[in-house]
């Protein structure tokens, strides 16, 4: 895979809207296959729609897709309970990773 694409896939070059869309697509295609997309809002409470195994799979997917490591203390409702919150969390994590790289 060309380098630029790889970076894009791991979230570095993605816009916040693209990140939110990626998360939404994953949730819909993996866990909510019977839900019409128009019936699912990015603000819907994932903790009511998904079970803990599914949330764990989501976290593992985020780590591999966006190239971040989610720490134990980051496993909170504020970070994970809706597509919007997950996307905002990923934007912050990707930003932190970039900063860390610059600092090096």
């Amino acid at each position, binding site marked *: 895979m060309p380098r630029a694409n790889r970076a894009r896939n791991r979230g570095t070059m993605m816009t916040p809207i693209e990140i939110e869309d990626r998360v939404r697509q994953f949730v819909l295609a993996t866990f909510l296959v019977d839900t019409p997309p128009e019936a699912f809002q990015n603000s819907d409470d994932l*903790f009511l729609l998904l079970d803990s195994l599914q949330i764990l799979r989501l976290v593992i997917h985020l780590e591999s897709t966006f190239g971040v490591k989610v720490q134990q203390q980051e496993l909170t409702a504020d970070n994970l309970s809706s597509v919007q919150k997950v996307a905002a969390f990923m934007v912050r994590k990707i930003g932190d990773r970039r900063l860390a790289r610059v600092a090096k």
Partner: protein
Amino acid sequence: MAAALSAARSGAQVCLIEARPRLGGTVAFSLIHTLGGLYDSAGVLLNAGLAEELVVALLQADSSVRKRRMGRTWVLSVCPDIYQAVVQGWVESDRRVTVLTETRVVGVVRQSDTIRALELSSPAGEFRLPTKAVIDATGTAEVVNLVSSSLVQNEDRRAAGGLIFRMRGTPPDAVAFPKGLGILRAIRDAVVEGSLPRQCANVWVDTGARSDEVYIKLPVPIPANWREQQEPAEVTRDALEMQAAVVEFLRRMPEFAQASVSRTGELGVRDGGQVRGEYLLTADDVRCGAMFADAACRCTWPIESWDPEEGVSLEYLQDGSYYEIPLRSLKVRGVRNLWAVEKCLSADRYAQASARVVGSCWSMGEAVGR
């Protein structure tokens, strides 16, 4: 227990035969601490009757008992010791039920299509109990198997069994959702790195009824020949080795540094053999919300498959929907007065994986007892 209470209420003279010294079955002795199948997707009681009475009795028994949301389902969180005390007291207080503990059904006396008596073995010796009707609630179709092994579906591939143990001394809500996912992930990472055995990949960790306790569920493969004498001991030994490895690993985590194992349950068998009944409940019935004229009870629990290699997966019913279990799937084929309830109902493995939870089991037992 539900069948006994219900038959007694209908005026029958009931004898409840229990191999263990105390009542409570898998919940009490394998440490089931989240009772499923009692509520629908909105958290409303699904079946009235004994299931509802059970909920009320448990809630009154101890303030730690509470209804809680678990993923997309609702469960009653209860300490297995409290469940044991409540159900034992309940059954013993019904004077129409004679409870014979430490007594095992070891044979059946059959005359053409009717069971005439059960052969029982107890510390006092062996004896015969004449009977008008028999309800097999052994969880593994022991009585039906004595009538004829051809009446029990014996699949080669069984759901993983479970060894559940409890650790106490953890900080409050150490593994509460979603924080607890971090512990599951750490266990899985350790398996990938090779510091925990492969079978530990599907370990499950859950909060208990009390804030300083954690329950750990180890999936244990159940071999096809598990009924044979030596197997249960061997299976349990392997599971105990897995338990030792998991405990050692957990105790290195800050949340578990002060914790210790306070109780280890007996190995639980999820599908020890469903009977061949007058109706076979299928996965399709579950998925499409089948209704029956002879409905025994309603169920809405997801199809909870415990694959020995892949771990647990859940297939949910549509929110607000339910299916029914017909009485015919609790009636053993070809034997006039023999019924089988709860985990050994007549169902394919997927339907059984939904129907086997505690709430449905109580309602099935009640319907047949009536």
